[in-house]
C-alpha cells in the first residue's frame, strides 16, 4: 500500500543543509499495524508528515498504492488526505469552537457529504467510541481521553485506508492510554492500516511490526531487538 524509496528530508538552515531524514526505504502493506519508534527529535513526526502528504520530501519516492505522490497537485493531495488518510495527533488538534460532533463532521463536510448523512455518521462514530453523551460538548469540556476519542472518530469519518497517529497517548495518563490503544487494536482487527508514532516502548508493543528511527535513519527492527535495547 505504501512504498517509500530513498526518502530524504533536508532543511536549509542558513548556508548549511540539515538532513532530518536519510534515505528511508520501506513498504507497508494493507492492514498492517506498524509502530515507528525512536527517541524525541529523531525525525518520526517528519516521516509521518510526509506519509500523510502534509509535507513533501526533499528527494526520494513515495508511492501511495500505485500513485507516485510527487506527481499529485495540491488539490489531489488534499483529496487524498480527505478520503484515504486519517490523522490522530498528540495534542488532539480539535477545533476549539466546534462541538465534538461538529469536529467529527468536518472531514465529511470537506468531502461534500450531505448534512443529515454526515451528522448521522458522526453520531454513530462517537457512540461507538463511547461518547454518545458528549456530542454537543466543546473540546474544553472534555477530558484528555475523551478528546482523543473524538479525534479518532474524526480521523475515521471518511473510512480512511491509512490511519496515522503521532504520539496519540503522549498527553494521556497510563489508564487512558491503555483505553486508546485498545481502540487502535480493534481498528487493526477491523482491517485499517495503522501507523503509530511513539517514543514509548509500552505503546510500541501493541504493534505487529516496528520501524526504528534514530538521527533520521529508519530501520526495520524486531520487537525483541527494540525491547532489549531499552
Amino acid at each position: 500500500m505504501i512504498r517509500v524509496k530513498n526518502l530524504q528530508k533536508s532543511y536549509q538552515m542558513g548556508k548549511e543543509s540539515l538532513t532530518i531524514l536519510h534515505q528511508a526505504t520501506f513498504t507497508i502493506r494493507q492492514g498492517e499495524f506498524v509502530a515507528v519508534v525512536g527517541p524525541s527529535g529523531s525525525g518520526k513526526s517528519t516521516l509521518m508528515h510526509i506519509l500523510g502528504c502534509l509535507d513533501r520530501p526533499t528527494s526520494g519516492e513515495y508511492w501511495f498504492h500505485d500513485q507516485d505522490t510527487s506527481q499529485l497537485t495540491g488539490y489531489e493531495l488534499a483529496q487524498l488526505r480527505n478520503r484515504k488518510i486519517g490523522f490522530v495527533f498528540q495534542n488532539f488538534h480539535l477545533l476549539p469552537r466546534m462541538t465534538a460532533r461538529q469536529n467529527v463532521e468536518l472531514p465529511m463536510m470537506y468531502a461534500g457529504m450531505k448534512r443529515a448523512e454526515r451528522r448521522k455518521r458522526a453520531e454513530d462514530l462517537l457512540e461507538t467510541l463511547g461518547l454518545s453523551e458528549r456530542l454537543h460538548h466543546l473540546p474544553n469540556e472534555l477530558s484528555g481521553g475523551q478528546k482523543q476519542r473524538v479525534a479518532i472518530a474524526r480521523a475515521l469519518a471518511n473510512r480512511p485506508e491509512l490511519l496515522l497517529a503521532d504520539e496519540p497517548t503522549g498527553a494521556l495518563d497510563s489508564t487512558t492510554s491503555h483505553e486508546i490503544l485498545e481502540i487502535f487494536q480493534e481498528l487493526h482487527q477491523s482491517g485499517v492500516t495503522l501507523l503509530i508514532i511513539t517514543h514509548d516502548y509500552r505503546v510500541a508493543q501493541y504493534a505487529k511490526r516496528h520501524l526504528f528511527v534514530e538521527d533520521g535513519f529508519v530501520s526495520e527492527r524486531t520487537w525483541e531487538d527494540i525491547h532489549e535495547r531499552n
Partner: protein
Amino acid sequence: MNATELLTSAFLSMRAHLLRSLLTMLGIFIGVASIIAIVAIGKGGQNAVVSTLENNQLRQTIEIVPRELVVPGIPQPGQILSFSNEDFDIARQFQGVLQVAETLYGQAAVSAGRQSANLMLEGGPDYLNGLANFSVIQGRMFTNGDVLTHQNVALLSQQAALQLFGRENVVGQSLVVGGQTLQVIGVTASTEPSLLNGILGGGAVYLPYTTLEGIFPNWTASEMDIAVQPGVSVPELSQRIVTALNIHAHSAEAFETSAGFLQGIEKLIGTITNILTLVIGAVAGIALVVGGVGVMNIMLVSVTERTQEIGIRMSLGATKSAIVWQFLFESMMLTATGGLLGIVFGVLVTIIVRAAFHFPVAVSWQVSIGAFLFSALIGLVCGLYPALKASRLLPVDALRYE
C-alpha cells in the same frame, strides 16, 4: 463546503470575537450610514418639488411669476417685478383660459385679541396655489363668490392658529390685519411633510386677493394664477402665454411660469444636495477605505492567530480554495454586517430628520441594496489577500505553528 456551511462558520467566528468584530465594522458602518442618510434627504427634497409640479398639472392651473423672483439678485434697471392690468388682459384673451386671477404675498402684523404676530399673508383666487398640498381641516375654503364680493374672510394655517389663539378650533373667531377685521372661516393643515410647505406654509393667513388688495392697495401682484379648461395642455398654453407677456414687456426674460420657478428651486436643492453629497460622500469614502483597511488588518491577525486551525483543516482534507472561501466569507460577513447595521442606522437618522425638521426624506431601496452589496464587495476585496495568504501555508508548517 457549501455556502450555508461557510456562512454559518463565518457567523460563528464573528460571534467568537464579538467586540473585535464590531469595532472592525465601524468604518463600514459609518460610511454606509452616511450614504443612506444623505441620499434619502437629497432625494426627499427633489421629490417634494416634483410632486408639487405634478400637482399643478393635475389641477389645470398655470402660475406665472416675474423672472426676477425666479433668479433672485439685484434687479436690473427696468426689470419687471410685478404684473400690470394689461398683462392680465393679455392672458384672458387666450383660448382655453377659464379665469385669470392674481396672488399677492406679503408679511404683515396680524392681531387677535391681545395676541399679535408677524405672519405671511397670501391673497389669491379660490384655486389658491399655495394650498396645493394643504387640506382644510376645519371650516371651509373661500369661494369664487367670496373673491368677487371682497368678503372679509380668511383661513389660518394650523401654526398661525396656534400662534394667535393657542388652539386650532378657531373658526368664527376674528382677527385684525391692517385695520381690517377678518372672520376666520377655516383652518388648513399640511397633508404631507413637504419641503415647500415648510418654506411657504409656516404661519400663514390665506384670503381672497380682492380683499387683500383692499387692505394693502400698494402691494403688487407677484403671481398670475390662471385656471385652464379641462383637456387643454397646460405646458403648451403656459408657454404661449409667457411668450405673449414677454413680447408685451419687450424682454425675453420678463416672466416665467412658476413651474420654472419650482424647477429653479429643484435645481438649487440639487446643487445643495450635490455639494452635501460630495462632502459627506468624501467622508463616507474615507470611512469605507479606512474600514476596509481595518478589515484587512483584522483578517491578517485572524489568519496568524488561527494558523494551527488552518493546518488542522488542511490535514482533514480542506483544499486551498476551501480555505480561501472560509476567510473570504468571514471578511464579507464582517463588512456586510457593518453595511447592514449602517443601513439601519442611516434609515433611523432619516426618520429622526423627518420628525425633527419636517424635512421630506425618501430612503432609496436601490441605494440600500447597492450599499449592502458594496460593503460585501469591500469584504471580498480586503479579505482576498489574507485569505490567499492562509491558503498558501504548507500544511506541515501550519500544523507545527505555535
